[in-house]
């Protein structure tokens, strides 16, 4: 089990965009930390990118939090994206857990669902 590493920084090219880099494994034991990191990232800018390209594992608690973060961002009028860099672990996990889909959920007004399609 690789330890979870969370690093949040300002995107130098796009002011107001926070990038949360997630590396290692998100599991129930660290889900609380992950939630705090997401809340912090969302409070820091109008757009949040979660970079999961270096993720080595994510469980259901992690997937739920990503979904809820997107929901919260939408409610607050902020943008929320996931960049997976083609990370097969993340894609497999999201697919096998049944999160990947063709259109967004009922909250998804702006067609921004994080699970639709591939990399964005």
């Amino acid at each position, binding site marked *: *089990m690789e330890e979870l590493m969370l690093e949040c920084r300002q995107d130098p090219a796009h002011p107001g965009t926070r990038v949360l880099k997630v590396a290692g494994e998100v*599991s*129930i*034991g660290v*889900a*609380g930390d*992950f*939630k705090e990191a*997401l*809340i912090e990232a*969302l409070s820091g800018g109008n757009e949040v990118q979660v970079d999961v390209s270096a993720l080595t594992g994510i*469980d*259901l*608690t992690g*997937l*739920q*939090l990503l*979904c*809820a*973060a997107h*929901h*919260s961002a939408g*409610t607050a009028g902020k943008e929320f994206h996931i960049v997976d860099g083609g990370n097969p672990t993340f894609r497999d996990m999201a697919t*096998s*857990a*049944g*999160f*990947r*889909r*063709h*259109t967004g*959920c*009922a*909250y998804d007004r702006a067609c921004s669902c994080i699970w639709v399609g591939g990399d964005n």
Partner: protein
Amino acid sequence: MIDQHRQAFKEEAYELLAELESSLLELEERPDDQDLIGRVFRAMHTIKGSGSMFGFDDIASFTHEVETIFDMVRNGKLQVTGRLVNLTLAARDQIRSMLDAADSGEAADLQASAEIIVGLRELAGFQGQVAAEAHKEEVHEAQKDPVTYRIRFAPAREIFVSGTNPLTLIAELRELGACTVVAQTAGFPCLEEMNPESCYVYWDVILTTDQGENAIRDVFIFVEDDCELKIEPIAEHNRYEEQQDYKRLGEILVERGDITSDDMRVVLSQQKRFGELAISQGILHEGKVQAALAEQQHIKEVRQEKQVAEASSSIRVPAERLDLLVNLVGEMVTVQARLSQTAAQRDDAELMAIAEEVERLTAELRDSALNIRMLPIGSTFSKFKRLVRDLSAELGKQIEMTTEGAETELDKTVIEKLNDPLVHLIRNSIDHGIERPEARVAAGKPERGTVHLSAVHSGDSVLITIADDGAGLDKEAIRTKGIERGIITAGAELSDKELFNLIFAPGFSTAKTISSVSGRGVGMDVVKRAIEALRGSIDITSVRGEGTRIMVKIPLTLAIIESLLVKIGNDSFMMPLALVDECVELTREDVAAAHGRNLAHVRDQLVPYIPLREHFAIPGDPPEIEQIVITQVSGVRVGFVVDHVIGEHQTVIKSLGRAYKDTEGISGATILGDGTVALILDIPQLVQAAEAAQA
């Protein structure tokens, strides 16, 4: 938080291991029982799944190996043999020691794990081919037409706490056949409100499988109580032609995740035009829209039922909290007694009414609080099965253990304290009681000996019997030993009962050689003391050549007992009511007639008595007419002389504390209604002390 989850996992794992052990032992007797094989497999599977989830990676990978073997057994590729059961039992012990090691931080014995795995693999390779041929045909017969099911799996919020990872269940579903999984995220709260350790998601799954609905239910068998599960067949593919256009619209939309079933309900109920339009243009028949609506309604109803199901589920509570509750209830009973007494003294009708109401409620509260701690004794019984199996193998005897009344409930603390004495008694039966197979055959008995363990409720006690069909106690050997040890005199006339009771004397052991199983001299006296510490009694009957029967009587609970309140001078004492036979009067004349011997005539029988005033050196003169409370301990009637008998009393037992730990004759204390302390008499010990003083 993580520790809490790990703890929950460990508790669950210990339970599963206990279950695993009893399943394996049963499997040894009935190797073809598919149900048992399934149980073993699922126990392994759950340990593996939760183990890996909570970071017990070594346990998960080890268990995986065993699970793989049992998967082969389950599929008929491997047969259950004695060796397989042995190895699996060893594996079970190994998992247990790994769990223990996780606590102490020591590394588990990797060598042992490796040996078990090698053994299992050998077994699989060796036996695998034999059964494969036979299995082929069966598989062919079992092949059924595939059926498509719609499954809704909604785990309870707190499912992670019980150590279950819903994703492993989803993965298992995928193994059953072509599977489309859609996670439903519509009910998610916003991030701030989300508890990261709760499960909010639920799944709609469309699965096409030829394994049948039971195979699907099997996947969810351990979470049945922790989830909302709905499985319905939606298409049977041999009749697919006829149903080709049945429910297609809703099914595909949901299946592809283009629309959730909730969204569809909203669309169908609000935008009636959609349905109407479809019907008017001939795209849809009205009935199909109706069917879809009915389906939504159905799901809605099932969801409402979920609330009810959650409310009736069980929770896990640390034992300390229960103990605290029982303690508080104990205090409550004491205070209630004071209230009743005060109310009676004041002669105030209103206060009396309140006191009576409190009395009723307290009694109910007491009963239900004590009830929570009640556990079936069966878990202890199954532990003994393993003991019998291992010991008989070690001693080269063939012994079968049968049990009865495993569902009998006893207080948890009593069950825990009962374990060691019972282990000792069973060991004795196996080691000294049951003979070797040759000797049994020579005596005309079946080669296989039996140890029968039974538990039954009797009044406020539980009667536990350990009976074997072995050689029985050797009265002459006991007599010789008794004389040798100076416990009895050479010419003493003893009844069978008295003779058998000798084996409870300290340092008494008739075994000629000391084996590793029993006979180290710490013997039955320790057992007897342990049983008496539980305020129980122990009794032996035995017939030479036919067997021995040991009966242990134990009170249901250790917290509160019914007792008889008596007075000597100004001091109050309690005598456990279960031991009291009757009360008779003792006059000065009676005492004089006995000529200084402490014997009373009760219905033409002589009953020895102990004058407690003398025994406890209580100053003052006894009243004209004293009372003898006659008790019965191990079949012997002994009286206790007191000044007055007050009556029955609900006694909340308080221990005396360390300073008085070794006080003889007193087993505890209680607080009376008026706030004074009454000592609880240790009747068996007083009797023993009096006997010793006489001898």
